[in-house]
């Protein structure tokens, strides 16, 4: 029997207040009439209007979106492949190195990842721009994708795949019609994770971006250094809104998908 104690109620309220109050204030003050960001002067949506007519921000948003879509898609393909290798690959030459290279980027400080990739791009004479950011983002987020996908792969029943193979499927067919539908929710959430990581990244993008490929975080960072501005508040609110809707939708959808799968599995057994 669990009781509600005062201590727990206070901990919960403080914890969530600490996590959410700064964000809520930021969103509220994006609707402030005044240019001052700490004094309320009435409701207005003019900063959103100004944002939408600011070409520099729109360009940066376009670059960010393109980089995000490309890098997360590449990361999802590579990360899923890497997960299959780790969980189903068996033994092969250099397996330890492979696993190490999957986990190391997760704990690698961004400044080192950014610096090392920049030095590589310069060494091979690749011009910096959106392409180099895509390569950089795909590299670190494929590791996140492969961790997400491999945890799903290692919990599902391998005999389903074997059955498909016994029934005459080729390895690729078995993957397409048995494995892929089962790991699809994990692949989708891996993609979403990769996309938000790319959308969010300042440090690695700063190292690998060229002068013509400023992303939103780079833009936000350079204007934040000059102080808080209501325009950035408006931009931040839009990003927060989109990410929140995306994550909530995805989490509800994946819960539904898992429940449906469980029901189907039960039906198949019964």
């Amino acid at each position, binding site marked *: 029997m*669990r009781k509600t104690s005062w201590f727990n109620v206070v901990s919960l309220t403080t914890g969530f207040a*600490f996590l959410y109050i700064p*964000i809520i204030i930021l969103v509220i003050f994006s609707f402030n009439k005044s240019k001052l960001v700490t004094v309320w002067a009435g409701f207005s949506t003019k900063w959103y209007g100004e944002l939408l007519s600011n070409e520099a921000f729109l360009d940066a948003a376009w670059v960010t979106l393109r980089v995000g879509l490309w890098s997360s898609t590449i990361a999802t393909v590579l990360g899923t492949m890497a997960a299959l*290798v780790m969980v189903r*690959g068996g033994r092969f030459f250099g397996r330890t190195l492979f696993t190490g290279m999957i986990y*190391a980027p997760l704990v690698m400080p961004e400044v080192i990842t950014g610096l090392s990739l920049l030095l590589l791009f310069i060494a091979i004479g690749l011009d910096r721009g959106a392409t180099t950011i895509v390569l950089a983002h795909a590299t670190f987020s*494929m590791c996140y994708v492969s961790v997400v996908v491999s945890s799903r792969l290692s919990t599902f029943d391998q005999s389903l795949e074997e059955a498909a193979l016994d029934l005459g499927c080729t*390895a690729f067919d078995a993957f397409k019609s048995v494995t892929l539908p089962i790991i699809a929710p994990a692949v989708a959430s891996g993609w979403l994770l990769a996309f938000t990581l790319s959308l969010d990244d300042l440090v690695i993008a700063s190292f690998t971006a060229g002068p013509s490929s400023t992303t939103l975080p780079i833009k936000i960072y350079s204007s934040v250094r000059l102080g808080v501005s209501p325009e950035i508040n408006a931009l931040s609110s839009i*990003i927060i809104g989109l990410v929140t809707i995306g994550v909530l939708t995805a989490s509800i959808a994946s819960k539904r998908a898992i429940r449906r799968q469980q029901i189907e599995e039960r039906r198949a057994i019964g």
Partner: protein
Amino acid sequence: MTLSKRLLIFVPYAWLLALFLVPFFIVVKIALSDYAISIPPYTPTFDLSAGWAGFVDFLSKLDLENFVFLAEDDLYWKTFLSSLQIAVIATLLTLLVGFPFAYAIAQAPSEWRPSLVLLVILPFWTSFLIRVYALIGILSNEGFLNQFLMWTGLISEPLAILNTDIAVYIGIVYAYLPFMVLPIYATLDKLDGSLLEAAQDLGCTRFQAFWSVTIHLAKPGVIAGCFLVFIPTLGEFVIPSLLGGARTLMIGKVLWEEFFSNRDWPVASAVAVILLLILIVPIVLFQRSEQRLREQNQ
């Protein structure tokens, strides 16, 4: 091994070798090179066309000069020590805030718990940069914390929090709280309430029971949470750069400045190599404790 399986291994393997391992060796190489006013700003550059003799010549020009420079300059020692100090203190602070929070979530009615966990995860998905930015409006001199404290009458002058180490601590606790709460919650959630009752039946006071049962069983979560906060904090750039002051010394910030402001690539690379060497210790310790946990669970 079939062709398709070879391909499956080859593609991600080659990608990681080319874009993770090779760049890292380039960093080491440049850390051993000399600064030069040229493009790129270091010598020697490796010339493939010179063949084996060129390679030997190239190797002979590498030296540890940059590391000697880092060791002799006070600034870098102070930076490494202050980064360690900030990371340790911030980790303990996050634990102090995170443990009661995780405990309270684990004690909440079971139908609430998934939503509460989702609420903890949600900020983790929202942009890190934006969340740090949101703190500027709270912590600045005319920010909401000072407005609130002056309104309550606790202080009469605004406190200078932004651009100090205190703001960095608050920023780290704020940004990394989910990393501490989730692993602790995961261990506390599995906790069997009857163990506590048994301890109390056997004569423990409530506090003794809490200490020897709850805390003891939550230890793996606490350890994991601490590593998950400590490791990224050590190389953190965004928080010290936006919330810290000119006197806040952290490795990530110094590396960034060496690279972008001073354009001293060899020293920036040497700083990166040392940061990595420092990080190896906690990473290996973390992996060992995870390994031990997996063995215990089996």
